[in-house]
């Protein structure tokens, strides 16, 4: 009998000894998972017309199980320190995975300085993620918000512990990655799963796609004029200079530009250095990623700091380009456009043809909870 009391006492001590600061191994968060079948099903991305092949890293092949795990993690507040926020808190599917506000607020009520970027077609980005290009891959990017003090403000050590101790995640990690024991759950595997889910976020069902690739629709005269100005396709209409940074069909040139948003005396005076803060090259100061314009009508407010509420404001800004001579690295294609009111409206109407609500309503992109 004394032995039984001793055993209970030992278990009680073990539980008490598991503080937040302990590693999972110290806490004994282990558990054999090898009885759970590991038969991942390959997932093949269907290439939409006009899209390139998506680059899939060799060490993170797409699987149905990996994507499903990534979707759960994306929508689960378990990734934040106080379990109140998740990735979706700033990336709503209905808003093309943005959040509708100028700058996002993290779990501590601290507002960031940049607008939430759309995750639409994010798998096609090859030249640096975030507005400033600080992460090279989706796997790298997915690690960042969890520990960012103005976002989810947790630690990966703690998140790993929570995942290891969770009733269902260890099984999902097993099914996705073949781990043998719940102690093998790592932040790298979590990031791989989220990256797999993000690579499925493909939008190719806009009116633009139906006109250009599927022959199932036609542009209105106004939309057609807007597209020709956007791409400088034909004489007789002004060049709106859009496609230099927002090349079709993806709606982005996958590069970084200073579009003349801010008036600065020198390249060191930008409030937000953007790409320059990452490369430490002053010539990159004030440059930001040119985001995709697909679903742009759903992703207001606009620019890296959300300063413009509407597409009309954006077009007005480019039409005036008030700071086009102001700093040495403003892109050469930024210049006053001299568009008429009708031409500006034509551009806005064309941009609306890039809206894809099939994407925003896709059940595979909604919360699994």
């Amino acid at each position, binding site marked *: 009998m004394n032995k039984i009391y001793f055993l209970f006492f030992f278990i009680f001590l073990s539980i008490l000894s598991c503080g937040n600061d302990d590693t999972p191994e110290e806490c004994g968060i282990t558990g054999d998972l090898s009885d759970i079948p590991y038969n991942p099903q390959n997932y093949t991305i269907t290439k939409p017309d006009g899209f*390139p092949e998506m680059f899939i890293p060799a060490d993170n092949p797409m699987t149905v199980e990996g994507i499903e795990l990534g979707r759960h993690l994306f929508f689960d507040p378990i990734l934040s320190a106080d379990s109140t926020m998740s990735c979706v808190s700033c990336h709503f599917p209905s808003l093309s995975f943005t959040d509708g506000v100028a700058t996002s607020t993290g779990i501590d009520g601290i507002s960031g300085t940049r607008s939430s970027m759309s995750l639409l077609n994010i798998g096609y980005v090859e030249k640096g993620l975030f507005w400033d290009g600080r992460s090279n891959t989706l796997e790298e990017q997915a690690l960042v918000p969890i520990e960012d003090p103005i976002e989810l403000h947790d630690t990966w050590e703690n998140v790993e512990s929570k995942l290891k101790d969770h009733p269902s995640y260890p099984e999902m990690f097993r099914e996705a990655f073949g781990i043998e024991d719940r102690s093998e759950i790592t932040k790298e595997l979590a990031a791989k799963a989220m990256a797999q889910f993000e690579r499925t976020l493909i939008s190719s069902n806009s009116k633009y796609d139906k006109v250009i690739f599927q022959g199932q629709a036609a542009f209105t005269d106004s939309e057609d004029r807007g597209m020709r100005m956007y791409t400088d396709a034909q004489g007789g209409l002004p060049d709106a200079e859009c496609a230099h940074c927002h090349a079709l069909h993806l709606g982005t*040139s996958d590069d970084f530009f200073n579009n003349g948003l801010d008036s600065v005396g020198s390249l060191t005076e930008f409030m937000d250095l953007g790409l320059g803060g990452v490369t430490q090259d002053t*010539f990159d100061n004030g440059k930001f990623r040119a985001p995709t314009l697909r679903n742009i009508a759903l992703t207001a407010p606009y620019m890296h700091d959300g300063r413009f509420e509407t597409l009309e404001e954006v077009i007005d800004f480019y039409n005036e380009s008030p700071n*086009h001579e102001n700093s*040495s690295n403003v892109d050469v294609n930024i210049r006053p456009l001299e568009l008429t009111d009708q031409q500006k409206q034509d551009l806005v109407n064309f941009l609306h043809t890039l809206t894809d609500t099939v994407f925003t309503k896709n059940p595979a992109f909604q919360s699994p909870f």
Partner: protein
Amino acid sequence: MKKLFPIILFSSFLFFQYSCKPDPTLEATTDVELVFKGKYADEVLMINTVYDYDGSPIRFDQFNFYISNVVLVKEIVGNPEETELLEIDFVDLSFKPADITDATKGFVITAPNIPVGEYSGIKINLGVASDLNKTSWEDYGTGHPLRKPGHFWSAWESFIFSKTEAKIDIDSDGSFSHKLAYHTGSDAAYRTKFFAKDITLDEDATSSILFTVDAKMMFDEIDVMTETGTHNINDMDLVNEVMDNLQEKALAIE
């Protein structure tokens, strides 16, 4: 058994003797480096660096171009025999001032496994060959030189063969307000440049062929005050002038 031993030894010797000799049917090859050095007149070319353009300060934002079907040529007269160095590549001379070492060294493209021997010249095509220009950037995998969304112009149905972007401070007041954006493309803009030059490729060493590209010459005989950009298919006259300048005046072999 004692008699067999010398036979085995001799057979082994013959086997190793012949197995160690190179296969005479295999051609000896080497790697060839094509080195492109950007310059502005006599200075090393870098972006965001001030040069003099006819008395006005000028600085570049980018300078790059495609090259296609680069071949080494044997025998200029008669039947020239061509050895392909590369099908397509992208020469980017937009070095930043922080990368002055790289800018001085030049942009290097390596063509591997080129047969050694004596060649009498090199042919470079400027732009994207028409068969490839029928395709689009989306047709290529990650890392391919044509997978550049910013270098494809859907309205032209063409890759952008070259981009020369610069700003001039016309009034020398510190404001580089005069902007030049010469983007070229379409099959009509494709140019061929042949350099007659004795080129010897040795088996034991990587060979380098050095070119210079003078960005100043891209503007030669172009009125940069009035002709500030080529984005439109209707700008073909200017596109042709720019590509002629690249072919005839800017690109040279050392």
